[in-house]
């Protein structure tokens, strides 16, 4: 790819031809506020917050849709840019609720971050009341249109990445809103597959997982479902999993997850979990200690060494678990009767 040279805020920057001014600035560590740009999605130019000044270009072009060019001179913090950003953001906030303290997205909200950066002390516009509704039909997430800023990320991720098109923007002035594509029906009745990618991309609290709780840490691991092996981060609070996030760096899934990987983790804490060894006595299971259960198993298996024994390992457990099971069958029980359900 060819390189071009441009200047951003006085810094000489070398960028790959074809990328946007926004991408070039970010690569250089220059922050330009945006609410609709996303590295996984096509440029959109919807929120009008990433406006910049570029020599020899009229007005204030959106940096997220303007490709870099040789010799370009870009300024991101002129009075004109600041004034335009403030005005855009103020308009955006006129119909956004102010009760951040009772919003689950509080402190994770991109709108908060951008508002803090742009800096608005005294709103000049009167608050507008928008007709809004809450759609909680989906078992995993809630749509709250009062918090929607119409950045279109949910619509775009569903089209561009999920390839489904379950959502669309209905443009109608102040009553513009995101609707399901088969008409404005509850999301549960739509073609939505509940992959949750729109929830993961939403910059505000408009799309939030149900029962959302803040995590105290994230642990990098692999999804326990199909063989794609999606990289995930488990969000952990205390000794509990409270959420899952796709790992954008993992080459198998590049941040995407399906409905099972995204939302299918509550089995881990289901009351049906086995929590103690069980020994069958007089036809009924009785709880036992590990010592007792292991001693019993060893004394019984001792009678069946050779080909009257078999082990069935598992496609669910770890590689290391499988290794020791086949080693047990072969080296200790003296048989190659070891298999698992690879064929099923």
């Amino acid at each position, binding site marked *: 790819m060819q390189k071009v040279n441009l200047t951003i805020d006085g810094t000489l920057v070398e960028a790959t031809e074809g990328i946007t001014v926004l991408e070039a600035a970010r690569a250089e560590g220059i922050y330009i506020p945006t609410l609709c740009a996303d590295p996984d999605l096509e440029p959109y130019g919807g929120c009008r917050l990433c406006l910049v000044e570029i020599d020899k270009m009229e007005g204030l072009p959106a940096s997220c849709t303007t490709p870099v060019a040789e010799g370009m001179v870009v300024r991101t913090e002129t009075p004109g840019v600041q004034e335009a950003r403030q005005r855009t953001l103020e308009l955006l906030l006129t119909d956004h609720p102010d009760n951040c303290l009772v919003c689950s997205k509080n402190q994770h909200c991109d709108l908060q971050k951008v508002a803090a950066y742009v800096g608005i002390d005294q709103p000049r516009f009167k608050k507008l009341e928008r007709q809004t509704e809450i759609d909680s039909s989906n078992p995993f997430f809630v749509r709250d249109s009062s918090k929607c800023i119409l950045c279109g990320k949910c619509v775009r991720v569903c089209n561009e990445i999920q390839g489904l098109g379950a959502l669309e923007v209905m443009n109608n002035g102040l009553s513009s809103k995101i609707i399901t594509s088969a008409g404005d029906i509850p999301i549960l009745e739509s073609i939505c597959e509940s992959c949750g990618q729109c929830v993961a991309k939403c910059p505000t609290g408009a799309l939030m997982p149900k029962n959302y709780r803040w995590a105290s840490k994230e642990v990098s691991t692999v999804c326990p479902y199909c063989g794609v092996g999606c990289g995930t981060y488990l969000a952990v609070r205390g000794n509990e999993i409270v959420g899952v996030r796709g790992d954008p760096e993992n080459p198998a899934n590049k941040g995407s997850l399906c409905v099972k990987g995204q939302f299918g983790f509550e089995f881990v804490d289901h009351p049906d979990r086995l929590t103690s060894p069980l020994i069958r006595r007089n036809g009924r299971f009785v709880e036992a200690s590990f010592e007792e259960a292991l001693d019993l198993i060893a004394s019984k298996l001792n009678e069946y060494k050779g080909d009257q024994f*078999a082990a069935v390992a598992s496609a669910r457990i770890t590689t290391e678990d499988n290794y020791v099971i086949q080693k047990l069958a072969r080296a200790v029980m003296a048989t190659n009767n070891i298999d*698992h*359900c690879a064929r*099923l």
Partner: protein
Amino acid sequence: MTNTIGEIENAACILSVGSNTTVTHPIVGLRVKKAAKNGAKVIVANPRRIDLCRIADIWLRQRPGTDVALLMGMARVMVDEGLADSAFIEERCENLDAFKDSLKNFDLETVENITGVPRNKVAEAARMLAGNSPASILYCMGITQHSHGTNNVMALANLAMLTGNVGKPSSGVNPLRGQNNVQGACDMGALPNVYPGYQKVDSPEVREKFEAAWGCNLSATPGLTLTEILQAAHDKRIKALYVVGENPVLTESDASHAKEALEALEFLVVQDIFLTETALLADVVLPAASFAEKDGTFVNTERRVQLVRKAIEPRGDARPDWWITCQIARRLGGKGFDFDSPKEIMIEISSLTPSYGGITYDRLEAGGVQWPCPSQDHPGTPVLHTERFSTPSGKGRFMPLEYKPSAECPDEAYPLILTTGRSLYHYHTRTMTGRVAGLNVFRDRELVEINPKDAAALGIADGDAVTVKSRRGAVKAEAKVTDDSPPGVTFMTFHFADSPTNVVTSPALDPVAKTPELKVCAVRVEKA
């Protein structure tokens, strides 16, 4: 997979066959959709109208069990029309003449009669696959779960070689593996005929190597496969069984037989995270830690070994599977089971498994590694067979094939075909997804998909309770009348213990892989 998931989106053509890709491997499905957006041609070969048909350039709707005829028909068109990649074949392959000879039985009239696919569509698909390189072939259990599944796979390999689609990015023969670590379980020799790294148990040198490493004598006789193990238990030749994290009572074909087999055992130990239908039959049940409660690795369908990390403490007295197994082994006098972490186990694995020779936890911390990775300085292998095939000659061997009908075809008594698969919202026997309330909002019961024509003839309406009967048993479920299933074909998943579909499926096995024919059996559907 011979290739890598990420490469799919750069393919010029994708053939998805016997795979309901967006349902069983949703993230691979996204890559196929991306490829289509990038201009790739998409060919779907599937008896059912799957989601991918929406974006397919060609949808081949073959009768279940006729894949060999369909794929050989495509090969015949390529050969007859001179579309084969002769440079690749000349340099990399052998046995072309015998293969060409076997194509004489697959003129398009015969192929159309067997498969039900119009001949011009077969030809069009052949031209599309041969004319758009690189082409990636994706397949799944719709190819393997047949009494001739091995032949189906060979037919795909023939097509890939014929079009020069092996050994280069975005091409290849790519099985999409169904479970999180089915690849790792196979790699580790949780198979009756191989040690870790597919080293054969009946090879004297291999056996000596493992005897020296493990300090014991080892059996030279390959063991039994899962289906054979259950038969042997039924016959009381196998008397004790240790089952870890599997639920054969629901997953095996002819499931009543599988249950009888387990009941015939003298001693059954089951280790799992839930009291499964199989665990209910056990003498001792051991509580295992879930994936989130232990360290280790999973190996995905593209051979990528990735770290699984403990995020929370095990519930109750549950323990990691490796720890439990080592405790049993030590109590039985086994030596070399003193591991204190999965990391230590991986050190032993890499010392004995050439394809894992360069894999260490320290390296995996920086990201997954695709085997073969024989040494520390080896980068891993995204694409297999780039220079030679793993045959004695190093050449890809064309396999002459014949069409063999499925073991059990419809007849007067059982006039419909039953084929089985999965739902997006569930996983295997629902031990996990059955315990996620939200997933059951989308699907909480078994459905029998049946074509409107068949439903009308049987007086069945959408939502009716029906009984599906085969020679082996009967199962009740709810009818879903839909032309997603072609006339003559019904479809069920095997997720629901209340409607145990495998009670009716066929025990016929592929003679090589010993995979049961879960994709074709003859049934009768009646209003319940």
